[in-house]
């Protein structure tokens, strides 16, 4: 193991020396973010190699307008809100789900199946499933929508906030002032969509895309592969996570998602509206669409004052450059979503960035 790390580190060091300039590699997966901080990888990288935490945490990129829609539904007495635990503390315009929890109609679920079960158990109420997450989570939502349709469970619906990673990566690279030289691509998203899904990014933008697992050694080897490519002036697509990821991904999961959803334009926290980047239920499942059922829409949000999550998610600034970081905004009292989720860049910096400074 140490051998592998040393070898990869040697390649990284010599590649960065050859390159001479600043190199920025962005990871777009919350689990990568946590693992990178947890393992202290940053501290062994050469000075001119910087890791940016991109829009890889589904909680962090969920727009405030979506949260406000959830909060509005939470105020209705005829609804039960079923949500993954991560969403509970994300701030909307007026508070979060947590501030409404005394209402007792907000339930934390571990899976979409649990949400559907709630509907079966509570026939007198409408269960709204807060369906967020990337390509990894969308298939689980699609399964229960089909089950609800097949079983005519009409007191169930979903508020789809599902997002697609690839369109967001393309938007980041289309920004004029972006500083991203390569992507460390998300492992579990790739398990579903297949590493082949990143082909267009490599071809259209000439940026290396490397899919890696979550262990420190895999992350370092992923960075090593990227540095090797950059110093050779190449941009290739490569997966070093063959234990889980294939080129085509999970076809059964892709089919069920395509059957239920179609891509639609939608809002991302910090990145704004992105074309065909969210998943909307197809017409034939329209009666399970909470937006339609309750006649609500997702209004674009106003920015939270002082919060620079948008710039953090785009890799333009580090969390510590936000004036609220660590003082007004901390994990126990978050202002922005990047501090809410433990997968968020600001929360990871708060925990591990501080530890490092204390040790240093």
């Amino acid at each position, binding site marked *: 193991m140490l051998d592998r790390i040393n070898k990869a580190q040697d390649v990284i060091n010599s590649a960065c020396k050859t390159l001479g300039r600043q190199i920025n590699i962005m990871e777009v997966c919350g689990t990568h973010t946590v693992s990178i901080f*947890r393992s202290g990888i940053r501290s062994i990288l050469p000075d001119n190699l910087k890791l940016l935490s991109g829009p890889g945490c589904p909680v962090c990129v969920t727009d405030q307008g979506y949260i406000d829609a959830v909060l509005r539904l939470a105020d209705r007495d005829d609804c039960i809100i079923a949500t993954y635990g991560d969403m509970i503390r994300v701030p909307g315009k007026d508070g979060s789900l947590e501030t409404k929890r005394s209402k007792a109609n907000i339930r934390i679920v571990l899976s979409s199946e649990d949400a559907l079960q709630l509907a079966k158990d509570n026939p007198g109420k409408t269960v709204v499933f807060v369906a967020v997450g990337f390509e990894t*989570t969308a298939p*689980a939502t699609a399964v229960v929508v089909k089950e609800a349709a097949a079983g005519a469970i009409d007191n169930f619906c979903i508020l789809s906030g599902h997002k697609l990673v690839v369109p967001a990566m393309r938007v980041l690279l289309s920004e004029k002032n972006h500083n991203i030289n390569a992507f460390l691509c998300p492992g579990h998203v790739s398990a579903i969509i297949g590493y082949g899904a990143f082909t267009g990014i490599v071809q259209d933008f000439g940026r290396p895309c490397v899919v890696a697992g979550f262990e420190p050694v895999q992350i370092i080897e992923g960075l090593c592969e990227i540095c090797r490519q950059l110093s050779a002036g190449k941009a290739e697509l490569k997966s070093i996570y063959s234990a889980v990821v294939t080129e085509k991904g999970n076809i*059964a999961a892709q089919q069920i998602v395509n059957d239920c959803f179609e891509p639609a334009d939608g809002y991302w926290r910090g990145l704004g509206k992105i074309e065909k980047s969210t998943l909307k239920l197809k017409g034939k499942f329209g009666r399970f669409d909470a937006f339609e059922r309750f006649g609500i829409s997702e209004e674009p949000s106003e920015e939270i004052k002082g919060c620079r999550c948008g710039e953090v998610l785009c890799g333009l600034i580090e969390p510590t450059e936000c004036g609220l970081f660590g003082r007004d905004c901390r994990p*126990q*009292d978050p202002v922005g979503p990047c501090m809410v989720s433990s997968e968020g860049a600001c929360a990871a910096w708060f925990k591990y960035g501080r530890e490092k400074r204390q040790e240093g």
Partner: protein
Amino acid sequence: MCLAIPARIIELDGDKAVVDAMGNRFKAKTTLLPEAKLGDLVLVHAGFAISLVDEEEGKKTWQLISEINEFMDTQNRLSG
């Protein structure tokens, strides 16, 4: 919330499975992985098996997850 856990299928009835991850048993569905068999090591995300995992990878990931859990615990304590 993108965390996915490798777990072994120890019971399987149609697409309803009971899986074991580091001694924790829980229910999961194999709807998205129809080829999954009893005894397979699979990656479970939000209650669904999403891919097969090789044995070595599974062990290494368990290790990482216990570390991340530690991280989350500290976070929770911090925010508690």
